[in-house]
């Protein structure tokens, strides 16, 4: 019955390939979507991701605090080590955040990072591993945002996210420095 047609019909693959994958809806569906995604409609996790790095540094602080508390050998840091004390005013001064890439930012960041590297070995192995993982998370987030910004440099959201990531990196360095102050003092005394 269809024999005549079959000789002229293109193979099935060609027919399927010819179908448009996109089919524009008969009406604009966005207003309906927009009505359902009002700001309050997203679960509380709405800001969780970007600040995945924020969560990371919080976990760092918690982990360090917990380990120190569990060890029970060190008193809480009543006074800061000279190195940390020297860094923190500079951080506070810059924490209003001199634009990254600027001299002040880079100097502060370099100082903090150096202290971080020196102090990292003082942390218990498990804590150190966790801190390093958190820093890797922060840096991966930083890379993602920078790539995104390369395509959309003026995005206010992306710029805010980037500032947040810088803040988290600084916080992590400071947290490590602060929590290793007692060990540094013992070594010196």
């Amino acid at each position, binding site marked *: 019955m*269809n024999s005549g047609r*079959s000789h002229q019909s293109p193979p099935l693959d060609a027919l399927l390939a010819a179908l448009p994958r996109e*089919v*524009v809806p008969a009406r604009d569906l*966005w207003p309906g979507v927009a009505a359902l995604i009002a700001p309050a409609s997203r679960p509380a996790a709405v800001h*969780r991701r970007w600040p995945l790095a924020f969560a990371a540094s919080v976990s760092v602080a918690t982990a360090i605090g917990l380990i120190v508390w569990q060890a029970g050998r060190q008193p809480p840091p009543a006074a800061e080590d000279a190195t940390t004390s020297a860094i923190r005013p500079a951080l506070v001064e810059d924490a209003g955040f001199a634009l990254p890439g600027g001299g002040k930012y880079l100097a502060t960041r370099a100082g903090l990072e150096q202290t971080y590297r020196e102090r990292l070995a003082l942390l218990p192995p498990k804590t150190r591993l966790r801190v390093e993982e958190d820093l890797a998370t922060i840096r991966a987030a930083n890379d993602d945002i920078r790539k995104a910004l390369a395509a959309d440099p003026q995005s206010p959201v992306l710029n805010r996210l980037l500032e947040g990531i810088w803040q988290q990196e600084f916080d992590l360095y400071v947290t490590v420095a602060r929590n290793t102050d007692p060990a540094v003092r013992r070594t010196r005394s």
Partner: protein
Amino acid sequence: MQATAQVVDFRDAAQREAVAERATVVAAIAGDRQAFEKLYRRHAARLHGLCLRLTGHRETAEDCVQEAFVSAWRALPGFETRSAFATWLHRIAVNTVLARRRGLAAALEHTVDGEIGDLDRRHADTTPALDVEAAIAALPDGARHVLVLVGLYGFSHEEAADALDIAVGTSKAQLHRARALLAAQLGLDPEAT
């Protein structure tokens, strides 16, 4: 030389587009609804095509597209930006369609007398494309779902099996079945398909 330059240009454009999309996704993750609307504008037609072919019913497909975007908005905070957004979104749409079908009302929505079937009767034999759409719409659900996902929207059998909650072997068998049924409906020589 010219062909090479074109290829390079294309790749650069594709990369630029990918980076731009990623930026938009990141902004949407952060709660930027305008960025999410951009994503909607970019993906809605393809998602609608997918839903329309899975459901065979225009209004149901539109509802599924809306539901899928709303679900995506809510799930965005958990989206890994290293994954392809389109793939993730398609998966949400498939889940939405299947969830609807599991509902009592959904059982009544799909019918070959639906919109595409109607179009087929009105325009029978006018265009080959319409023939194909109507033939796809008339396929049994299992065969149609696999054909649409694997044959039209680029899912692997593994991805389709996962999305449809079937075995990979079943997915392959359903695709074979769908192609055989389509060939028969379209009067194609099975050997030529």
